[in-house]
């Protein structure tokens, strides 16, 4: 999947003559209030060093992906936007509005047909003929389908676009669906998380620009470099799990000693993401490090997997690097500590059973 093509090459491919191309450059310069010498510079730039056009659409979402994106420390979001890509449409930050904004979509289809990246934040709702998300008077899904038809590849930002996320939690009143459910004929890279880590987002973009292809994806379409391990596998509290040292409730002695958050509901053992390695906001911290269990926000349907404060009971994940947590705990803790680990595992299980009973009685 080659991404880079100069603007001039793209235009020639679509039967535009060099004369028309130069006229386009003059009009662009005039539109900016610039003289003819500027037209020559624009023509030179478009012939030789184009930035990959990116169209960033927003469906049903909360804009946390965009907010996360602008937190990127390396590279800075400003450098991505000004020097690496050409973010030609993103309604959250673009200067134009109304029909001037929507014209850009058609210009992009015309100029860069098959050569732009479609970045999707949020997802389309299908109920009410798609009109739970209206853009320019029409259902968002029409815009999504139209732009997807003409793009080269799709980045599904965040858990909304990748899985459905919060608006798709039961009973999914708007019938919101992830991008891959409605766009089936284009390559899609999923970058899940609510939101994804900033440097993971810019890392995916820079990988694509540098190597001119998608990074290697797992079977679910996620880049392996960020999503191939569970948080638990690299968690800095992991030694406490192995030693059977757990936080029993928030702000107890164990919490102050940085013990494992498994028993207060941490979903790290079943969540594939880069939080425990890349960390957040410039590598400063991440949810588990700050004292709250992982919500599992990069996982499909994490909203409907039980309370965020109920311990996960099945750590036997197919294809994972481990068997079950208590076995690992027993092996790593060694013979002398088997009693402690077994006790810890038993107490985890009995606690979980209790809370299950408590929870189910309320349903």
């Amino acid at each position, binding site marked *: 999947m080659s991404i880079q093509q100069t603007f001039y090459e793209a235009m020639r491919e679509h039967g535009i003559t060099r004369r028309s191309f130069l006229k386009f450059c003059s009009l662009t310069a005039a539109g900016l209030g610039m003289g003819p010498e500027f037209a020559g510079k624009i023509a030179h730039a478009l012939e030789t060093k184009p930035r990959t056009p990116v169209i960033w659409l927003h469906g049903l979402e*909360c804009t946390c992906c965009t907010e996360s994106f602008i937190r990127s420390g390396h590279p800075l979001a400003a450098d991505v936007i000004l020097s690496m890509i050409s973010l*030609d449409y993103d309604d959250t930050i*673009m200067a134009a509005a109304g029909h001037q904004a929507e014209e850009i979509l058609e210009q992009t289809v015309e100029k860069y047909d098959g050569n732009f990246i479609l970045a999707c934040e949020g997802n389309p709702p299908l109920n009410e003929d798609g009109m739970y998300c209206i853009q320019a008077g029409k259902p968002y899904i029409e815009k999504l389908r139209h732009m997807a038809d003409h793009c080269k590849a799709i980045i599904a930002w965040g858990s909304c676009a990748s899985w459905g996320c919060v608006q798709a939690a039961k009973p999914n009143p708007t019938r919101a669906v992830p991008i891959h459910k409605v766009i089936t004929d284009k390559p899609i890279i999923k970058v899940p998380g609510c939101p994804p880590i900033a440097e993971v987002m810019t890392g995916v973009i820079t990988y694509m620009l540098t190597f001119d292809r998608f990074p290697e994806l797992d079977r679910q379409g996620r880049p392996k470099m960020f999503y191939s391990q569970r948080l638990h596998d690299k968690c800095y509290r992991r030694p406490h799990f192995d030693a059977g040292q757990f936080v029993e409730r928030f702000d107890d002695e164990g919490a102050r000693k940085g*013990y494992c958050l498994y028993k207060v509901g941490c979903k790290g053992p079943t969540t594939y993401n880069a939080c425990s390695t890349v960390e957040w906001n410039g590598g400063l911290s991440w949810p588990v490090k*700050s004292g709250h269990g992982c919500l599992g926000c990069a996982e499909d349907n994490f909203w409907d997997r039980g309370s965020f404060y109920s311990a996960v009971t099945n750590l036997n994940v197919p294809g994972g690097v481990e068997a079950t947590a208590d076995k690992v705990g027993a092996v790593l803790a060694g013979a002398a500590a088997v009693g402690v680990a077994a006790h810890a595992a038993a107490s985890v299980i009995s606690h979980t059973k209790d809370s299950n009973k408590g929870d189910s009685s*309320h349903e």
Partner: protein
Amino acid sequence: MSETVTPNGFRLDDSGQRVVVDPICRIEGHLRIEVNLDDSNVIQNAVSTGNMWRGLEVILKGRDPRDAWAFVERICGVCTGVHALSSVRAVEDALGIQIPENANHIRNLMMLAQYTQDHLVHFYHLHALDWVDVVSALDADPKATSVLMQSISSWPKSSPGYFRDIQARVKRFVESGQLGPFSNAYWGSPAYKLPAEANLMAVAHYLEALDFQREIVKIHTIFGGRNPHPNWLVGGMPCSFSLNETGGINMEWLNLVSSIIDRSIEFIDQVYIPDLKAIASFYTEWTYGGGLSSKNLLSYGDFPNVANDWSQENMLLPGGAIIGGDLSTVHEVDVRDPEQIQEFVNHSWYTYPDESKGLHPWDGITEPRFELGPNAKGTKTNIEQLDEGAKYSFVKAPRWRGHAMEVGPLARYVIAYARGEEEIKAQVDGLLRDLGLPLEALFSTLGRTAARGLECSWAAHKMRTVFDNMMANLKAGDTATANMDNWEPDTWPAEARGVGPVEAPRGALGHWIHVKDTRIENYQAVVPTTWNASPRDPEGNIGAYEAALLGTPMANADQPLEILRTLHSFDPCLACSTHVMSPDGEELATVKVR
């Protein structure tokens, strides 16, 4: 309709040319505006439409109230954390949970950091391009720009070489012919008034602010693990202090928080505030956009100084309501009183059994009904023009004692001013004096933008106060961050109602919860943009956006620059504003808790 006068005193005339702006960009979410212009291109009618609905509160029904903050935090990632705070407050209120002093301090710090970052990003990245012509910056003399900058601020990045580098970067960008997010905009419009040097200065700070905002949110990362969407906890905060252990918030992280506070104060006071004053000084004649601000304003008040005391006297930023522009009386607001806050839906895409009446959020019903009025143009899935005589928005119409209200920084500042809050008065009077403007000038688009800037500075400085109070509390030996006494559901009453009022950066926010048999029975959020983007109500009162657009002349009917200015001054957030709860509606599938 043709010509009519609304009960809240606005003349509407829909006989002239109709202009549709959809999407409104540089906001959160999806918003549509339609206006009618007279022969002189002055706006005589305005229609505000929320374009999205996600149904989060239906999704909450039947879930564990301790989980609710995580769901509702995802109402919005721009004002991240504010809904989570409102939610944990509502649950704590319902269950009678008192939080430790440190948890209150940390929550205040996180919200003040949110104000600081959110207001900063709004000014430079969502609003500035309404006033700043990026392309004009190419004509600036870097040396003159340096002189300008040094005349208004002691900020060190002000040399001619610095501005020359920024200008060269902008030039390279423009010469690339790929203008990215600056494509197809309104550069060169006569509505832009800044000299080239001020434009270049603002462009430089657009980039600096985009870089610096990353630092402010690290306060969330330390206490809540990340940003956007940090973690919260019913009963306090999930982080612990470990002053003599290895494993929680220690002296190193506290020092980082302290350093971020100092740098935030410097950036806001040396970059944002001088820019705000410099830009405003070129637009003092652009006096439009006041709308409801000179009439009805609402704030719940926030930032409790002492934990668990909700009296306005305990608030760092006290609230209330102003009605009819009478600044001599600040009315008390009771969020529990069923007669005070009510939502109407007769112009919203929802239905009530009796749409002539409003409902208090604890009794709220929302059943979606998407339908276009008889005078709409186009089709159901290709709307050319809406019919504001019928239902026309996914935003409900909230009212306080029947009045449409404006909320947000300007509302908070005018209310605090009217209450005689010394710090706020000094800030406001100082700004007006510097710009040579009377108090009435506040009631405008520029006033709204100015109040947000002043509040950003206030919030940055207040972080210092709160941090120092927290350190004093730690020094006195109190290190608790969470009260877990009522964590287990068997300690809860069989049925309880709670409310969590918050002043979010965009204005008054409230979550109302009804807990029954340890599960969420009903959940309602009335958010700032619901107030400001409100459609008409059964009486015909128009909301804050609609009112603010009236009377504004447009330089060019085809370029919505003036509409964007006024709407952006509210900092719209549409994902927040559209919500639903249907106590009698769709049955939630059983939530399986493993």
